[in-house]
């Protein structure tokens, strides 16, 4: 079974309130100099081979469903078993 991973992150220019909250919590715990931005990771199990067509299909799904490209960017990659 092959796996495709889609990472979705808020665009750099978009404020990330969750990441800011995590950054603040880390600072309170004594971790200085760490700035966090928080995103989402989708792990997609694919029946059969990951062909170029399958990858394109997942890119299309990421574009239309997994990410809102108004505020987010995404990255699609195949994870080797």
């Amino acid at each position, binding site marked *: 079974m092959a796996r495709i991973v889609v990472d979705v992150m808020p665009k750099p220019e978009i*404020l990330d*309130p969750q990441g*800011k909250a995590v950054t603040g919590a880390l600072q309170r715990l004594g971790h200085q100099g760490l700035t966090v931005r928080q995103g989402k990771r989708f792990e997609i199990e694919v029946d059969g081979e990951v062909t170029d067509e399958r990858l394109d299909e997942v890119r299309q799904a990421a574009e239309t*469903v997994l990410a809102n490209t108004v505020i987010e960017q995404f990255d699609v990659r195949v994870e080797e078993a």
Partner: protein
Amino acid sequence: MAIKIGVVTFPGSLDDHDALRAVRLSGAEAVSLWHASDSLDEVDAIILPGGFSYGDYLRCGAIARFSPVMSSVIDAANAGMPVLGICNGFQVLCESHLLPGAMIRNESRHFICRDQRLRVESSDTAWTGDFAVGDEITIVLKNGEGNYQADSETLKRIEDNGQVVFRYLDNPNGSINDIAGITNERGNVVGLMPHPEHNVEELTSPSLDGVKFFSSVHRFLAGVGV
């Protein structure tokens, strides 16, 4: 014959019944529409209510956007039918690309629930014709992700086109340009984060400023011969 206004119920909608009640109080026939059916039951206008459709999973409004009813709502909106998206409904309209931009979490990271003062910026929509530009109104606001954002090009376009319909008088959530509500180019689709359906009765409302949303759409529909 009374006009018919439909209110869509998604799994997780909360304010559908308040919206139906506000529709009835305005003198229109209130029609419940169901997310899993693509029938709009011959309504003249549609409201997408507040709540947490599909548990806000993925992103607010993202899964609702792909429900069967929304394909009909999108077609009807593109054909000119008045559509009002309130709070979660506004998020669904943005996810559907019927309105530009998107909502992110409030800048303060707090859920905000308060009587919110707004300035009316456009009376040139199906839902705001009974207001005057510059009117200052108070409408209930209650959300955690009401922070409106759009890229600079989109922002310039909606500002230049007069598509900003409401602005916050004291921005509660970090929305860009104090934007509380917007419309599409045609003016038939309006989305806003505050809840006009909660401001239609003296018993439970600090203002009755929500009434004009409903009277506006009555007047709009009368004007186009419904």
